[in-house]
């Protein structure tokens, strides 16, 4: 579902678009799982093109962070949406993984 912007070493930046909701969250999880299983430890998800994330979508970030953290990797989320960044802050996600506000 997401366009792989680039893969360097064990890093990957994903650039999904549209929605991350109950409809496709599991598909996104599978995709992330495959990436992690392929040895990738640093995942950056750019949400600039995502216009909607629901609770299921949010869960993806949690499980992703959990998985990466367990393997010694890390998750970075980039978004130009201020509210989304604030939500992540409110939920203290930013204490666990990087939430980057892009311009």
């Amino acid at each position: 579902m997401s366009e792989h912007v680039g893969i360097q070493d064990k890093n990957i930046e994903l650039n999904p678009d549209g929605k991350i909701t109950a409809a496709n969250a599991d598909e996104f999880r599978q995709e992330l799982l495959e990436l992690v299983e392929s040895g990738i430890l640093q995942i950056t998800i750019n949400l600039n093109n995502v216009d909607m994330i629901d609770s299921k979508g949010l869960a993806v970030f949690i499980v992703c962070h959990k998985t990466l953290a367990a393997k010694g990797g890390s998750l970075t989320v980039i978004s130009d949406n201020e509210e989304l960044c604030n939500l992540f802050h409110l939920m203290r996600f930013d204490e666990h993984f990087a939430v980057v506000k892009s311009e």
Partner: protein
Amino acid sequence: MINKNDELVASYIEEANETLADFENDILIIEEAGANIDIELVNKVFRGIHSMKGSAGFLGLVSIGSLAHEAENVLNLIRNNELVPTSKVADALLRAADCLRGMTNNIDTSNDVDVTEFVNLLQVATTEESTPEVRESLNRDVDIALPTGGLAFVMIKEMELVMWQKQGFDIYVVSIDFFTDIHDKNLTPIDFYKRTNQHGNVVSSYMSTAGIGELDSELPDSMNFVMLFASMLAPADLAQAIGVPESQVSHIATSMQTNWEPSGPKEPSGSVESETQTSAPVEACPVEAIIPASQPVSPKPKNNKPDTVIPTSSTPASTNLRVNVKVLDRLMNLAGELVLGRNQLLQEASDNSSLGMESVANRIDQVTSELQDAIMQTRMQAIGTVFNKFPRIVRDLSSQLGKECELTIDGKDVEMDKTIIEAIGDPLTHLIRNSVDHGIEDPATRKQRRKSPSGTIKLKAYHQAGKVNISISDDGGGIDGEKLKEKALERGIITSDQAADMTHREAVKLIFHPGFSMAKVVSDVSGRGVGMDVVRTNIEEIGGTVEVDTEVGVGTTIVVKLPLTLAIMPSLVLRCGQDRFAIPQVNISELVRIKASNVATTIEKIKNIEVLRLRGKLLPLVRLSNALGITSQFYDRKIDDLEDNQRAQIADRRSGQEPVQAVADLRSGQDRRENTVAGALNIIVVESGHFHYGLIVDELFDNKEIVVKPLGKHLKDCVCLAGATILGDGMVALILDVAGIASHLNLIMPDTEQALEDKARADSQDSETQSTLVFANDPEEFFGVPVEFISRIERIRASQIDSVGGQDVLQYRGSSLPLLHLADHARCKPEPEAAVYNVIVFKISGKEIGLVASNLVDISELPVHIDTVTFRQTGIIGSTIQNEKAIRLIDVFELTEAAHPEWFTQRETTESKENKSNVILFAEDSSFFRQQVTNFLQSEGYEVVACEDGQIAWDTLQDPEHQFGLVVTDIEMPNMDGLELARNIKSDPMFAHLPVIAVTSLAGQDDIEKGMKIGIDDYQVKLDRDMLLAAIAKHLKAARLKSGVLTNSEKHQIRN
């Protein structure tokens, strides 16, 4: 835009007003207590203002929110003992409360109000009065614990919480499940963020990752998020705002701040860090859910021993519940219906008495009554809600006026219907203001009067006789009735005559007169033209009354009497026409029944108003049938034989057999109907405020507890009706509004009082009235006999009457008394058959004769003006009117003569009408006698010149136009009495020859001798016509003999 009608806003306004109502009072108490604060009370005030602020924030009421916030800060400092509630602080708070109230009541524009001034006031008060508190201890960590002992958060900076709380925020632990609370409601986390952000600040939070797997397992169905949240909202509002059940919002006890000392042994039993195994959010106490008690984890090591703070339940354990008044009203209505149903059931059960049915009915009866009481209670409020604002009013007002007043309040707990409570606020405020403004004197004056410089106002509520009395008494100057009178005179409210007649009590009542304000100077306190009349009107509207008791220099007590409730009223059920009506008991002062035989005499008419003389007072009467425009119906109940007979006659007449009577022509149709119906009269004496009047109804039933139902809108103009109710038999009865009826008919009491005076004055003028025995053979026909003519009255049995040769004779004391029946000689109805008769005995020409009368009515002082035309016939001299009834006066001589002409054949009669000497001068001040004597003298062929007193007679005598042959004079007369007249005549050579006959009731031997000395020729006792005529004839003849002028018959007699 703030919509006033929005349910939320409406309930906010209501709540805010309730808060503010208590606020003032509490602040005053707090102020009084000074540094020695009552923590409970401060907390209560704090909570009130806090939730007011919170809700304001929720509704976007910015100005209210920020001012309330500031007030809350101040209160917070007070309860932390960081600020002493001096009067300056209290003032600032009170002024803030005023501003808040203003804004609350004009909620639409509240956001435009600039509250800076008040905020500054509060801040200044705070900084000036604040006592520096130890603050270093604030740098401490606390754990937020749960009731079960688990922790929701650890290592929260106490300072941070305090900071939030200082700013007026409340701290909550809020738990949200991202699926049940967000996802399932078709919301996104962003929506949640927006909401949360709007209503407060997240102090700390965490996502419970328990139950959330990694990428290789299914995505979770539950994500529990817990936050420590600072918000200004009340728990319920916060839950609603964020969109979670209220159970997931836990308020962190604010008492943490009042109890800084580490609270000791309670060790935290859980840690946030723990990866607990909760699978789903637990609704009841989600905070608990993340730290199950079953899995104790040792606490994190800390530098400071943490305080343990117990969150209070989100819905504090309260015994009160806020219920929409409409729901209560509906319950009330249903209870009313139930009562009606119960009444029907009871009636039905008593009619078809079966034991089982009866016991069921009784059970239902009991339960219904209890249910009704309970529901009634839901509407009851303590009167304290009204009283609470008065200390503030008295405080402010007295300082404004430079007076010292102390208000004591008693009976705050007395409960009354909400409607009444709401309605009496303004009137009571006015009365209290009056007491301070007009009642209590300034300290200097008080000192002069040797009173303590501080005045006392006592406000007291108590139960009495099923009503609630509220008394407001002051020890002030009292009300000066004389000054009131002056003022009233000045303003043309009363006339000087009225003023002179007024008692102190009546004068004091003047304060209730519209537009009457006693304030010497129109202050901004009172005297604004909205006076006591409005107070009275308002109180009367809810069925209450106002009484004033005052003494100059000592004080004034005003007692307001109010009903407990308006919804269910004990009422008297009555019938008028074919319909039944109810009158609330509170309006009824007594019931009066007037027997049919007394109706004619007891009911009088003044200025076209029927009045009842009840214990010396005149009571205006209203026929309910007239007021409502329905036909009243006579209820034919047999009481005893005598009355029954009369009634039978009435019935006959009503069937249309009534012969045309002269009397009938004189009366209006209405009067006829009234008299036709006039069996016994049932009069309900009702009071509406100061006003009493009698309501004549057809029949009285029982007292019932009735449920008041409002009338439809289309009937709202029916001023006579206050509502409707359903009776036990299912029929509707209308509830009468006694005040409405009075105003509808324009009953004005003062007029009646005036009329009473007029009447009393008229009554006192004896010369204008004549004592007359009034009797009736028929309820519609009244006859009168001057009491002077009556020698006695006998009550006899019908069996004592014998008929001898067509002449009824009463066997009586061994002899027989001839009886007269009026109907035999005059055109009138015969007396009805009866077992007992009254016989009026006269003495005529030395013989006794009895007149049969069936019903003696009364001895009345009748006006002496006699109509000698309308009813003039044999035996009837004329008629007079009393109480709109024509009373025919009987000429007993003529009547006797008609019956027994043979008795009178001996009497000499004059023959020549041309004879100048037959002109008689007659002096008599009683116009009744003047007329009667004049009449019979004229009928005997004499010419009579009648004069009203001796002086006029004397003047007339000297008028050369008249040539008199004889003088007849009364003795007792104004201006010149009969003796003087006689003396003048006898000492004047011109008239000394005239015979003078004195007619008097003064017939003692001394009097006669005295008269004889003067030269009076003859004495006649008032009033034996026969004897008088004989005397006149005798003296005229003697005079003619002297002068040698004799009539033919006289010559003839002399020859013989």
